[in-house]
């Protein structure tokens, strides 16, 4: 009883925790630097001080989450993290939208926490302690049915925070509302704590108990990939777009984690470690380039005050450095070699390949190759999505006054972005080293020790028992590309160049209005995926007479499937019950007294049931 209340603040700095701490600091530092320039001018000094307070609290709480050694303390840190991030979401507290976003976010995450709590307490029932070690020991004596329940609870809980479909709806609300440096931390790191939870509590403590765990995670994450990227394609609020693509990337990360769970169950430790490495690698990569992209979006927003990409454009001339950073981020996220995103997706695909090569049953093999296909499709769609994003925001002519008058952001913001740009490239080229480091993390997390993952350092050469060798060397790729490009320039640069208008079919003048819009860009996808997006259009004609239509308005929408068919009905049900219950308090005292009478009567009648 007493031991309930001395919450021993003990830490666990195993490689996993250290890795996550590193990720946190890696994204938080540049965001903090960035925020100097971002907040200045926009807010009053008091508000800025408040923002810094919240930022520090946020970082500290996240650090606690990933490093404590006690489930109860973990819960507390977890809730505090959610609370602080809520305050950050409603930072612009004047706007109804932020308030609504905050409510949605906090309610979702609270429900998730309830599930986590239940899971922990069921574990506690067997362990009689909240220490990770004793929980780990207790996991042996748990019956497998209970383990399944716990797994489901933890998956729902942490999945809500990580934003896997169908628990993702809070993400596109919350991330855009927060100040940009915070959105970068939220999307870059905070949602990763959900992944940390899954790795720590499911793989490390609970131990993978049955096959379907991994498979379920794989399916969910595959769905998250596709749903995330498709919604991102449809979106034209730049920060919302990034939020949706976070959902997709979480999916990719979990593809790695899930397959490693499957391998653990099949007891192929080498593969398990390999795919966990893939997952972790994509985790850190996503942290970096998503942070970068959010910072860039923030700079665009603070330069123009617009987040709608349909109204932006031509910024590459106004703010070249931001454009360059965004380009790097976009290339990385669409997995273009030799940047980091490519490496991690390559690893994940390799994991799937080897899985479909050496998986036990044919069904499993086919399943894994399907996962590979989904990943490939996601990659292609992401590329399209970010071509759209970059093209609409930075290229061609400005689509409005505010983007014409835009100018490059302040120094601190530049530093913040460049820092992350550097790491985006570094983690691409230094893949070999990173892989080596992550191997340690993955081994300790999976709790297995294998010699079967070897690699030599030119790029890296992955050899394992079952497969012949394959090789990939990002430095070499970069080298060759660079060499060829430079060669081309030296060989045949400097031809005569004449500047002239864009060709406009002889139309007398070319305006921004002629440009292709983001909506137009994504139209093929909207039609191709109409089975899921269920697009519908609304047209209205302003006509002078029956024959003369003055103007014609055409809007197109897509149906938010999960909200419409999953959440609205649920909420509606709750509200109808509440409204029905309202009659209980009818205001008539006679009724009230009769309640008492009826209650006592019922109790006496059913007395012997109690």
């Amino acid at each position, binding site marked *: 009883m007493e031991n309930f209340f001395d919450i021993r603040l003990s830490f666990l700095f195993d490689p996993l925790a250290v890795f996550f701490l590193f990720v946190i600091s890696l994204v938080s530092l540049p965001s903090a630097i960035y925020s100097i320039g971002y907040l200045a001018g926009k807010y009053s000094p008091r508000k800025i001080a408040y923002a810094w307070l919240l930022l520090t609290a946020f970082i500290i709480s996240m650090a606690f989450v990933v490093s404590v050694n006690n489930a109860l303390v973990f819960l507390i840190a977890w809730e505090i993290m959610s609370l602080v991030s809520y305050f950050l979401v409603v930072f612009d507290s004047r706007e109804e939208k932020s308030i609504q976003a905050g409510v949605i976010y906090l309610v979702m995450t609270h429900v998730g926490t309830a599930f986590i709590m239940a899971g922990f307490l069921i574990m506690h029932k067997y362990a009689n302690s909240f220490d990770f070690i004793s929980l780990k020991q207790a996991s042996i004596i748990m019956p497998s049915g209970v383990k399944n329940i716990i797994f489901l609870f933890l998956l729902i809980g942490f999945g809500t925070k990580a934003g896997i479909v169908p628990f993702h709806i809070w993400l596109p609300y919350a991330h855009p509302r927060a100040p940009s440096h915070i959105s970068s931390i939220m999307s870059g790191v905070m949602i990763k704590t959900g992944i940390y939870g899954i790795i720590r509590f499911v793989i490390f403590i609970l131990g993978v108990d049955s096959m379907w765990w991994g498979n379920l995670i794989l399916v969910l994450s595959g769905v998250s990939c596709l749903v995330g990227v498709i919604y991102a394609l449809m979106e034209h609020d730049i920060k919302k777009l990034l939020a949706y693509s976070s959902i997709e990337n979480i999916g990719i990360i979990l593809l790695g984690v899930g397959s490693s769970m499957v391998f653990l169950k099949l007891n192929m430790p080498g593969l398990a470690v390999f795919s966990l490495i893939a997952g972790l690698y994509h985790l850190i990569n996503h942290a970096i380039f998503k942070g970068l992209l959010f910072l860039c979006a923030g700079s665009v927003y603070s330069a123009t005050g617009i987040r709608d990409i349909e109204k932006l454009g*031509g910024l590459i001339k106004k703010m070249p450095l931001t454009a360059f950073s965004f380009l790097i981020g976009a290339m990385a996220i*669409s*997995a*273009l*070699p030799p940047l980091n995103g490519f490496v991690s997706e*390559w690893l994940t*695909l*390799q994991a799937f390949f080897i899985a*479909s*090569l050496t998986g036990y049953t*044919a069904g499993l*093999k*086919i399943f894994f*190759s*399907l996962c*590979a*296909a989904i990943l*490939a499709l996601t*990659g*292609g769609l992401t*590329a*399209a999505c970010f*071509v759209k994003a970059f*093209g609409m925001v*930075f*290229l*061609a*002519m400005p689509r409005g006054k505010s983007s014409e008058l835009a100018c490059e952001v302040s120094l601190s913001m530049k530093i913040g972005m460049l820092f992350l740009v550097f790491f985006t490239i570094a983690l691409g080229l230094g893949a070999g080293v990173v892989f080596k480091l992550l191997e340690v993390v993955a081994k300790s997390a999976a709790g297995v020790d294998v010699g079967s993952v070897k690699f030599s350092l030119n*790029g890296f*050469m992955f050899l394992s028992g079952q497969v*012949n*060798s*394959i*090789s*990939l*060397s990002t430095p*070499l*790729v970069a080298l*060759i*590309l660079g060499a060829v*490009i430079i060669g*081309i*320039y030296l060989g045949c640069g400097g*031809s*005569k*160049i*004449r*500047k*002239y*208008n*864009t*060709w406009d079919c002889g139309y007398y003048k070319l305006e921004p209005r*002629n*440009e*292709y819009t983001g909506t*137009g*860009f994504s*139209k*093929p996808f909207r039609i*191709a995926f109409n089975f899921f997006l269920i697009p519908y259009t609304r047209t209205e004609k302003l006509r002078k007479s029956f024959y003369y239509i003055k103007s014609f308005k055409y809007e197109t929408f897509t149906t938010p499937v999960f909200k419409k068919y999953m959440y609205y009905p649920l909420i509606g049900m709750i509200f109808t019950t509440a409204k029905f219950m309202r009659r209980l308090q009818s205001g008539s005292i006679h009724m009230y007294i009769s309640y008492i009478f009826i209650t006592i009567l019922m109790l006496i009648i059913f007395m012997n049931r109690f």
Partner: protein
Amino acid sequence: MIIYVESLFIIIIAPMVSGIITKVKNNLRMRIGPGVFQPYHNLIKLFYKEEVISDKTSWIFRVTPSIVLASVILAALLTPVFTITPYARHIGDFLLLIFILSLGKFFLALAALDAGSSFGGMGSSREMFISSLAEPAAILSIFAVSLNAGTTDLGAISSLHAVKLSSVVAGLSLLMVAIAETSRMPIDNQETHLELTMIHEAMALEYSGRSLAFIELASHIKQIVFFSLIANILFPFVVSGGNIIFGITIYILEILVISAMVSFIEVGVAKMRLFRAVDFLAFSFVIGLAAIVISIMGA
């Protein structure tokens, strides 16, 4: 060393393949048509022409041609041609090849948006659409073959020394992908510049002179890369080391056959609507999946 020689070789003969295809097409249509070396003439002509660049454009527009060219050259380096010493290429495997091609596409699409004309936007949108659907199909089909080879290394794949049913099916799906990627009928039509239908040409619309030359060359190389892939997948008897003459002859034969097939298709079928392309690629995707299933079953 030899591998770089052969890569150089395919880079050199790349335009000729297009020339051959055009020739065959024309002959099928009972025309004489230009000679097989016509593409070279075009390239040289463009190379020495003055460039006109839109004043709306940014540096993206300038660097794109060289990046595109570089990416396909790297792809050419990755491609097995006729002499394979397995794992000779420590650069990467087929996944890298696919992704490197998409690097080129990425930049081309950006450049198309850069000029701010609606054609460019149309082109890049459609290109990204097609390629995002084509990529998984390509990956699946090569996946199937790599399952046979036990590795994703192209060298190993193309020195399998046994025709398997799965690799044939995979080759078929890869052919469809190649048709889509090299912007041929029934997905795209290289010959016209009709606004409503063109895809690849629409992206290159703003380019002229030397840059255009680069882009054209790049598309030629890309095409031969795909052809050699198909060749070595369908007929993986590339000699390891030794007797190069035999290898070369076989390779050339294969390329000729494939280009003949392509030109037959081009003449034979009519262009699809853009959204029928989805079905086309989905079909190739399914075939690729079938290939995987077959190879897992062991055929």
